[in-house]
């Protein structure tokens, strides 16, 4: 058997590329320039990247993880009958379908993510083979707009962008409002640092989003749509653009879609880097060419939105659920979840977790189950301390509350929010004060400046947090943080300001001891805050390799090469950047 009979499929989402997919593809090509390689989007098993699938000519599928250029020859040899199965890298095969690695996907319920990583995003026929564009056909041929809205009402779908507003209610407002033209906007401005499900969907399953937009447009009576996609996601822009063009060719987009009197078209608008543009009215201002500043609501965009016309803005993940809901019925979607929250939610799991990636689970799943059954627990072996949910608008949920179920009300009760689904896991090496400062710096920078408390209040909070991290604070500063939290929440117009203090409020609530350690003991328990730690070299352990000296950016390390224990750090010069700690192979550097 020669390699030409093998079909190689390599995951090439941005995360696959970051893990080195191009090198892997080159390695296959080097082996056989004619080899049949296709690329697919990201399946969401980011910890296994680069993921490679081999289809042999008997129709068997083999999935390999953590593939590097060194592993490629082993895989090829095995499939040519010349070597052993590279077991360490095997995720799935006809004989092995219960491996730990495979359980990552096995323990999930994938509706929004049903196609990602399983098909070529550049191929409309791949999507159609997976029942793509059947839902919109059904909608156009057999359903009235009211019936579509009714089906979505039955699904109890709520907006997945963060606020959780019932999708059918929003649509009804727009359906009922008068206008010669109505707009539908796909909100792909996934600005929460730590969330990447929208990127994965736009890159890996763009036709699904187009179909979702078509369904929404049909329901509200829109003929023109915009896909607002972050500039930081070039691959999403590229794949989505190709999908629009391909859909046009088959008359799935454009005039008189599939021979009906329904017409709809989509334009891509690239964002330009402003977190606040995730807010509906700011996003509209941005598309209109203005600074992306929110305005007062009402009037709501459903009544008066883009260019003054009725406008609906739906998040990418919300749209991704729609074709499934139409095909399978709203009741089937509502069968998942709890009384409060129906269906599934996608989370982007990252941080100190063994198996990071995209996780889609039914609402009502416990946080602990996501972290342990799917995420595989702590990556460092150190106990987990908290998860951060909801990005800069969200909060930290401590370990003792990991049995909280994932549903809107229960998450809100902890002080965090569901948000768009970023889930950053932290062990004891993360300083909660530093984390709160990180988020406050972010919101302070991203505040549009319209409301005084958001503009100045977040800056004051950042200054107070910096004081604490530097060991210069007094206990009264904690009261000042509490006070600012209340004021900023009350006196801000949009969600950015109203939620900006959340990271501080939740860390103060659950990790007050860390704040106090910084203030009273001048000590950072996680050994992160640079002003409160020192790097020192243990002479007995130092091998004299000189790596630390070479790496030190401020020449704070001196010693004699090849002389054991001769190196030391000049504390007056040291900036505690941690480079020496990182490169020391003999663990001779301690951080305290």
């Amino acid at each position: 058997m020669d390699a030409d009979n093998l079909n190689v499929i390599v995951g090439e989402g941005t995360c696959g590329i970051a893990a080195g997919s191009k090198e892997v593809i080159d390695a296959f090509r080097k082996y056989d320039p004619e080899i049949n390689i296709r690329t697919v989007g990201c399946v969401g098993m980011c910890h296994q990247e680069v993921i490679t699938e081999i289809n042999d000519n008997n129709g068997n599928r083999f999935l390999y993880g953590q593939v590097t250029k060194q592993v490629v020859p082993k895989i090829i040899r095995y499939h040519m009958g010349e070597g052993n199965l590279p077991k360490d890298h095997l995720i799935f095969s006809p004989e092995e379908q219960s491996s730990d690695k495979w359980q990552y996907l096995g323990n999930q319920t994938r509706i929004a993510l049903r196609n990602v990583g399983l098909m070529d995003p550049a191929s409309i026929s791949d999507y159609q083979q997976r029942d793509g564009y059947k839902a919109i056909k059904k909608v156009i041929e057999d359903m009235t707009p009211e019936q579509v809205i009714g089906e979505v009402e039955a699904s109890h779908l709520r907006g997945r962008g963060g606020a959780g507003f019932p999708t059918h209610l929003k649509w009804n407002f727009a359906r009922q409002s008068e206008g010669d033209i109505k707009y539908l906007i796909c909100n792909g401005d996934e600005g929460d640092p730590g969330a990447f499900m929208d990127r994965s969907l736009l890159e890996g399953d763009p036709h699904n989003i187009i179909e979702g937009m078509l369904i929404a447009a049909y329901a509200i009576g829109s003929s023109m749509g915009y896909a607002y996609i972050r500039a930081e996601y070039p691959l999403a822009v590229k794949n989505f653009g190709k999908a629009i063009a391909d859909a046009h060719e088959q008359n799935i987009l454009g005039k008189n879609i599939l021979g009906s009197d329904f017409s709809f078209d989509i334009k891509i608008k690239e964002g330009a880097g402003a977190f606040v543009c995730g807010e509906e009215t700011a996003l509209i201002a941005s598309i209109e060419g203005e600074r992306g500043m929110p305005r007062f609501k009402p009037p709501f965009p459903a009544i008066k939105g883009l260019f003054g016309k009725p406008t609906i803005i739906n998040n990418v993940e919300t749209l991704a659920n729609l074709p499934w809901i139409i095909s399978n019925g709203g009741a089937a979607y509502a069968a998942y979840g709890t009384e409060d929250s129906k269906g599934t939610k996608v989370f982007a799991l990252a941080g100190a977790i063994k198996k990071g990636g995209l996780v889609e689970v039914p609402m009502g799943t416990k946080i602990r189950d996501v972290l342990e059954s799917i995420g595989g627990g702590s990556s460092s072996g150190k106990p987990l301390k908290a998860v951060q949910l909801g990005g800069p608008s969200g909060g930290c949920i401590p370990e003792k509350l990991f049995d909280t179920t994932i549903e809107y009300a229960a998450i809100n009760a902890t002080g965090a929010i569901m948000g768009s689904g970023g889930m950053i896991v932290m062990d004891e090496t993360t300083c909660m004060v530093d984390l709160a400062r990180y988020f406050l710096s972010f919101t302070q920078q991203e505040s549009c400046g319209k409301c005084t408390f958001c503009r100045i209040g977040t800056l004051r909070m950042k200054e107070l947090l910096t004081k604490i991290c530097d060991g210069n604070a007094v206990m009264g500063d904690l009261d000042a943080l509490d006070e600012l939290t209340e004021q900023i929440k009350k006196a801000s117009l949009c969600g950015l300001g109203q939620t900006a203090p959340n990271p501080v409020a939740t860390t103060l609530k659950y990790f007050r001891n860390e704040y106090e350690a910084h203030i009273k003991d001048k000590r950072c328990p996680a050994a992160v805050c640079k002003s409160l730690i020192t790097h020192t070299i243990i002479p007995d352990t130092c091998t004299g390799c000189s790596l630390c000296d070479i790496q030190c950016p401020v020449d704070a390390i001196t010693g004699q090469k090849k002389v054991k224990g001769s190196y030391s750090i000049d504390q007056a010069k040291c900036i505690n950047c941690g480079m020496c700690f990182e490169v020391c192979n003999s663990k001779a550097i301690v951080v305290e």
Partner: protein
Amino acid sequence: MEKALEAKVEPEVILGWIEKIGGDSSSTVPLLQAVQSEYGYLPREAMDLIIQNSDITGSQAYGVATFYSQFRLKPVGRHIIRICHGTACHVSGADRLKTSLRHILNISDEEQDTAENGSYTIEEVACIGCCSQAPVMVVSEDVLGNLSGAAAQRALKKHARQNDEIVTNIL
């Protein structure tokens, strides 16, 4: 992304874009994006040409250019390094990438983000969505993940070799 430090603006290029993209106020963002993808930043001459030859006012052009973090009013190096500062990257050492790269590019002035020889500019960007590969950076168009400070330096040196650039503090 290989641009010289000081851009030479050709009026017909800018006028061509106004023609193609449009000169109404809703074209402000795409027009500025086009200018920046050509020159790497928004040169003063290009801004003037847009303001004089379209319906976009000066306050709107500069209002938009200073509001969105993507736009730069200063020239940049021939290549751009984007260091992700998302949450996952922050907790796994994005700062160290910055320190180590600034070190080998010999950028010591805190106000500066471009190497003196005009080779590289270091930018901090909001999350690029590769959180499971944190910390992450993007050199020109290449996304690189799971980096340590030293690995980031190796990657940069490799990029410099391939692009005939000199990284000043070669170690």
